[in-house]
Every structure is written in structure tokens, then in C-alpha cells.
């Protein structure tokens, strides 16, 4: 497969970036998108050029490291997959592929296609935890009966890998899907009730401080999320927030 790649190149956080065009040949349909970029980088290194920087780690869709806005969509045109799981068979010989970093003021570019997503860490640190005794008196989680539906909803919310595709897809660069998933996974369980009032307020406050936009319910985040995190989580977070504010 022969492809034309238009890739955002930016030397550093402060440097001015621009799209640069590369030609690449010998791409197999069974390769993942990141393997295709590996081939490009090998080629660039052999030519004595600087390789393209991009985030990756597990390469099996569970770590949330890989990102990339591919042809206008986070993680590319496929659904419910991360960039590392995106196969090159989704593209055709002769295609031009545009590759950009996730764009959000709260996700500044570090270099090329790598963005700083530590804003998500700070939101998580603001309230995404529960107080559990872990000093040897830990109560078995299964000792507390939990309604099946709540257990399932909590689990699905917890499958959010924090990749940032929701922010990248949203026209407002809103982080509400991420934040709501992190709020929901605790809000649905009795273990999460202790800090419920502070949690949602603190996480939403941090989300706003980071400079993410407002949710306008376009639903783009849910469609592009590689884990299929539901918009219901945002409605739940809104309820949790209103309830928390009313309690003071």
C-alpha cells in the first residue's frame, strides 16, 4: 500500500508547528496504524531526519496512551478502537491521511503528535478516589451487596482509559465525558458515597480550571470514544453536581 501522509510537525512546545507531507510505501493492511508510523520513522532515521514523535505504550487498546486525530477523527475512522488497534486495511492504496495531535487548549502540544494530557490526572486527583482502609482490615468488596445494574454501569464507566478522544472529538474540547465517567464509577457504588458531595464538585471545578469547554450535547464524544463510554454518565454527573450543590 502506498500512502501520502500529512503530519503535524512541531519541534517543541514553544515552536511553531506546521503540516509536513511524507510519501510511504510497502504498508501492509495487517499493520496497525502505529506500526505504519514505525515504518515511516525507520525510513526517516535512515535518511538522517528527525522521526515523528507520537504517544504509545501497551499497543493493545487498554493503556490510553495512544492518541492522534486521523483524517479528522480521534483514533481514526474505525469505531470502538484506539489508534494502536486501527488496522491499515481501513485505508486504501493511494490514500492521503492527515495526522494531527489532539487539539485542546488544555492539551498543549509537547512535540509533534504528543500532547500533555496531565490535565486529566489533575481532574482525577481532585476527587477520583475513595477512602478505604488498606491497613490490613480491608473489607472484601463482595461483602457489600450491590445491585447488578449499578455494578455493571459502574464497571462500564470504569473502562474509560482516559485517552482524551472525547475532548479531541468535541467541537468545544469539553472533558465532560471523561470527568463524568470518573464520577460515575464511584457514584454508583456504596463505597463512593462517603466523598460523593465533594467529589463531583472538586472534579468539575478542576475540569473548569484546566480550560476545557462546555458540553453542548452533540454526542461526538460517545461516538468517538474507543471504549464506548455512554452519554448517560454526563447526565448522571449533572444530577450528582446539582444534588451536591443543593447540599452545600
Amino acid at each position, binding site marked *: 500500500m502506498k500512502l501520502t501522509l*500529512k503530519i*503535524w510537525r512541531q519541534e517543541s512546545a514553544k515552536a511553531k508547528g506546521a*503540516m509536513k507531507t511524507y510519501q510511504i510505501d510497502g504498508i501492509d493492511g495487517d499493520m496497525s496504524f502505529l506500526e505504519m508510523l514505525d515504518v515511516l520513522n525507520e525510513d526517516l532515521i535512515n535518511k538522517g531526519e528527525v522521526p515523528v514523535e507520537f504517544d504509545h505504550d501497551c499497543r493493545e487498546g487498554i493503556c490510553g496512551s495512544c492518541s492522534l*486525530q486521523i*483524517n*479528522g*477523527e480521534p483514533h481514526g*475512522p474505525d469505531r470502538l478502537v484506539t489508534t494502536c488497534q486501527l488496522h491499515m486495511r481501513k485505508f486504501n492504496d493511494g490514500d492521503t491521511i*492527515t495526522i*494531527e495531535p489532539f*487539539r*485542546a*487548549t*488544555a492539551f498543549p502540544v509537547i512535540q509533534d503528535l504528543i500532547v500533555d494530557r496531565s490535565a486529566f490526572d489533575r481532574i482525577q486527583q481532585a476527587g477520583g478516589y475513595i477512602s478505604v482502609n488498606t491497613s490490613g482490615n480491608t473489607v472484601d468488596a463482595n461483602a457489600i451487596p450491590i445491585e447488578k445494574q449499578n455494578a455493571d454501569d459502574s464497571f462500564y464507566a470504569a473502562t474509560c482509559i482516559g485517552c482524551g478522544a472525547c475532548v479531541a*472529538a468535541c*467541537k*468545544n*474540547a*469539553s472533558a*465532560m465525558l471523561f470527568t463524568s465517567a470518573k464520577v460515575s464509577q464511584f457514584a454508583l457504588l456504596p463505597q463512593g458515597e462517603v466523598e460523593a458531595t465533594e467529589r463531583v464538585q472538586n472534579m*468539575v*471545578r478542576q*475540569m*473548569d480550571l484546566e*480550560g*476545557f*469547554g*462546555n*458540553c*453542548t*450535547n*452533540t*454526542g*461526538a464524544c460517545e*461516538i*468517538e470514544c474507543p471504549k464506548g463510554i455512554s*452519554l*448517560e454518565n*454526563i*447526565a*448522571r*454527573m*449533572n*444530577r*450528582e*453536581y*446539582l444534588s451536591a*450543590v443543593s447540599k452545600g
Partner: protein
Amino acid sequence: MGIISSSIARKVAMALSGLFLVLFLGQHFTINVTSTFSPETFNSWSHFMGTNFLVQAILQPVLIFGVIFHFVMGFILEARNRSARSISYVSYKGNANSSWVSRNMIYTGLVVLAFLGLHFYDFWFPEMVHKYVESNPEDATRYYGELVEKFHDPLRTGFYVISFVFLALHLFHGFASSFQSVGFNNKYATGLKKFAKVYAIAIPAGFIFIALFHHFNH
């Protein structure tokens, strides 16, 4: 200040003010549609709305506040959302994951705002001058004639029709979306959202019918 500056509080405020305006729209349509089959009913209901103390002294100021609040908050949120992505994408495929109306509420809203300007110029300002500046004696039969007269002009009628199309687009996303914003997401939500979509098309379509009815029948 903490709550007012919160993204969720603003979102809820936007939804609640929108829901209030949607309710008002239904009431406005109910009165206006009577003009197509009973000028007497239209005159009588309009006279009631125009002279009732509670409507004039309480409902009308609340409505005007609701309209201004909805637009001002819309602009504030739009400015915040634009600043949340300071560098735009070279390639952004919005159609792949969201509807055009959901992404362009600010533009459909601006058309509705322009329409409200004309609508106030046509009806509300003359009404205020008639009642409170010139202090004319009450006339319960004047409303139908004033309505019909406005729709003689094909340009004005055309602009009204186009505006109602944009209003339908705005409501098609906004009305259903407001339930999500206030956190309403239970077994009744799906049905309510369907009702909201039907309402979003039916009410503006009804207003278009009224405008065209008077244009072609008088």
C-alpha cells in the same frame, strides 16, 4: 460566584431558560393559531394577554429576562468553547460523529435573535407605544387586523418563514438536549426526547402555516 462560573451550572441555566422559552412558544402558538379560524377568539385572547396585570407586570418581564439571559449565556458559553481549542484542526470530520444542528446552535440562534429583533419591531414596540406611551383607549378588536396587516408584505412573510425554519433547527437539538443537561435520564427520557423532536418541528411549522395563511388569504 463559584456556582455561576461552573460549566454544569451554566449548562443547566441554559437548559432551564430554553425550556421556559419553549413553553412560552407553545402558549404563543396556541393563541396565534386561533387567528386562522376565529378572529374573535384571537382578539379576545390577545386582549386578555395584553391587558391582564399578571401577564403584563410579571410574565412579560420574566419572559424578556429569559430571552436576554438565554442569548447572553449562549454567547458567554460560545466564547468559552472557542477558547478551549485555540488551534483548530486542519481536518475535522464533525459529520462523522454529530449532527449539523448540534454543532451550529450559535448560528441558528443568531438567526432567531435577528428574527426577534424584527418581531419586536413589528409587534411588541408598537404595542408598548400604543398602550403605555400614547395611552390609547382599550380596543379589544384591533389585534386581528394588526396581525393580518403585517403579513401583506411578501418580504416580511418570507423572512418569518425562513426564521421559523431556523427556529425548528435550533429547537430540534436544543429542546431534547435540555433534558440531558438537567440530568433527566430515566425510563421516560427516551419518550420525552422524541416528543421534543416532534414539538421542535410541529410548532415552527404551525407558525409558518399561520404566516402563509394570512399572506395568501388577505
